């Protein structure tokens, strides 16, 4: 008999206080699970892979290049798109090198031989200077960079004062005329990887300046956690007061 009396289980509470506490915990737990995991599942269900504009332009241009039917416009579009990807922060070093190879090669297809030779010399000089200089504000370094931009950017139809022009100056290879077969085959995959993103109405809606899903996860969910904790303490205090439940101090 005594053995039976002293059995406790979360799911079979024996007192009113325990029952009320269990119900409160279950309610808060369900809210907690739905708020965290429910939202992420919804985000996953709604998200679809969406290519960036740069990829939409790159694919047909690269196909023409591969089939040997490309014109200047195709080289320019492919070059511009690759330059854009070199600005991605998550880009790995091997991928960056492959893109540099690709950009340099497209430029070589667009520039006359004499201009290409001049540009190549300056790219080599810039590469040497980067090893030598102690400050990125070094005058000779900056001049060389500007000179590269003035020669290369117009060929790819990139504005000289733009971010893409800055990236272009750094994204050129010493050997511009040749692209390795390995890099050639890697480039479409790299472009597709870095220019396709999971998007949905939840990611494209802007709320308080944020993409909504980001706001929800990074800001609102945390507010919610504090609120849930407060609610639990408040309701527990009320319940204990109602039931005259005194907690022991030791």
């Amino acid at each position, binding site marked *: 008999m005594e053995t039976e009396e002293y*059995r406790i289980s979360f799911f079979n509470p024996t007192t009113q*206080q325990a029952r009320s506490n269990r119900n409160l915990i279950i309610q808060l737990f369900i809210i907690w699970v739905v708020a965290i995991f429910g939202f992420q599942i919804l985000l996953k269900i709604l998200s679809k892979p969406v290519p960036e504009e740069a990829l939409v332009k790159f694919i047909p241009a690269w196909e023409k290049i591969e089939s040997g039917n490309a014109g200047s416009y195709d080289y320019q579009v492919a070059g511009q798109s690759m330059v854009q990807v070199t600005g991605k922060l998550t880009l790995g070093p091997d991928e960056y090198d492959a893109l540099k190879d690709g950009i340099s090669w497209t430029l070589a297809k667009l520039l006359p031989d004499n201009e290409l030779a001049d540009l190549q010399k300056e790219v080599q000089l810039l590469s040497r200077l980067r090893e030598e200089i102690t400050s990125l504000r070094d005058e000779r370094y900056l001049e060389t960079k500007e000179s590269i931009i003035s020669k290369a950017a117009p060929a790819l139809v990139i504005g000289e*004062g733009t971010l893409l022009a800055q990236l272009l100056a750094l994204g050129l290879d010493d050997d511009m005329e040749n692209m390795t077969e390995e890099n050639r085959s890697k480039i479409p995959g790299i472009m597709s990887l870095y220019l396709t993103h999971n998007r949905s109405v939840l990611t494209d809606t802007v709320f308080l300046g944020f993409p909504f899903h980001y706001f929800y996860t990074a800001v609102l969910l945390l507010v919610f956690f504090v609120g849930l904790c407060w609610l639990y303490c408040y309701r527990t205090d009320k319940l204990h007061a109602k039931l005259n439940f005194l907690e022991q101090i030791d």
Partner: protein
Amino acid sequence: MKRIYILLLFSLIPLVTYAANDATELEGSFKVGPAIILIFILTLFVLVGILFRAKDTTDYYAAGRGISRVGSGMAIASNWMSAASFLGMAALMYGTGYHGLAYVVGWTGGYVLLLILMAGQIRRYGKYTAADFIGDRYYSQTLRAIGAGITIIISIAYAVGQFGGIGLMFKWVLGIDYLPAVIIGGSVVLAYTLISGMLGVTKNMQIQYVIIITSFMVPLFILTAKFDYFWLIPQIGYGAVVQDIVEGVKIVDKAGMANSLGHNFAIVPSPEYAMPWDPSTGQTFFQWMAIAFSLMIGTAGLPHVIQRFYVVPKARDARWSVVWGLFFICLLYWSAPVYSAFGTILSSNPEVGKLAADAIVVYTAQLGNVNPLIVGLLAAGGVSAAFSTTSGLLVAGSSAFAHDLYVKVINPEAKPKTQMTIARLGTLLMAVIITAIAILDLALIAQLVAIAFSMAGCTIFPLFLLGIWWSGSNRAGAKAGLITGGIVTLISLTYLIGARAGWILPFNDFITYYLGAWYFAWIGAPLAITANIIVSRMTKETPIEIRKFLIEKVHS
């Protein structure tokens, strides 16, 4: 306490005037202003430790149970806000975008679980340490010893990341190599913990919280104001920064604004920073969910976190201290993504080169041309965060060593003085082991810490959850659960070490993906709970006196 805060504020004024014109450098040289701030803050910690020194074992283990709810909340936050929160969180978002938010959610959402399932009950159970609870609840000296061993292992795993953070910041401030930086930083935190014990630690934690949160917040106001975003609440204002990263910022959009290296405040459209589970980050939906879940249950199983609830006078205070603690923690977690967002734009030019992600908080402030002294204060805040957590971990580990292993298992007749000596020896031994592992620089700070969470989720969490809520869970069940959780942990860590050593083990890809070292508790914990339940049902029931205690003391 007020005197100390005032002393701190006035002492900083001449320093701000002194070094305000230092040139900003990303790394590599000795930084005078930040070094002075760091030394000053560390000295302050040691002085406070001496002032509030532990007088006996009760003081040492549980701060005399005299800490208020808000004070305890601050201590919970300070204890919690480690190098992983201060430095590692922004690092993860900097490298993997939305994936990093799994850590933000995991490390805050777990407190809800901890509160509703455990906080009050743990306090009512009235034990000093996690191993004490396990030993008494499961009426087993073996389990007490195993619990103590697990506590020590988890504390070491957790503290490795902290020592890494301390080393990184000492390296940045002193301009020395990582190896001596870890040794110097580790020695300072060890000296402090040995001097003070937890009473000093708890008082210090309240001061540390103020330093941590102030140093973390100030640069955010400066960055948002400087780059023309809504600066009154940077935690909201950075939403526009995130959106700008997604859509791209052209040079003309923010003309005249540049980072400290002269690069324009501009970035190509980079939706991968904010879009969920972006293919380019290499992280998946499953990993996001598994990390969030593992970190949440790990939170509710970490010995040094659970131990915080013993220092409040009663169960109600334990509950409310969680609310305060979580609020104080969230202040930092709302802010960490701001650093990664600004860091992403400010370092987007390939000329900046590959930055150490774990130091991105400091680099962001530097690249944003924030006053070098404020950057120094930020670095000191990072050290404080690692410092406060490490102190708590060393106390939890040494308590397990001296109280649970030595006194309860090896020498029950030990005098309090001997106990204190053993606790200090344990602290020293742990610090040496932690330093040796931290020197290897195995992974990102937050990832190292996540391993400790998964370990706790697989081992201690199931024991506490079932121990509190089901009297049917018995000694045999507890052992079965521990073995199951232990096996999962062992498999995951073997594959982690194998990957680092270049071994190709059977089912390598499958195991490293589904039992990843940062999130293996997603399956380890449910399996351990299931094993505990099945074996408990098949074996002899829990003794009547334990069940009576549960009903009369813990649930009534």
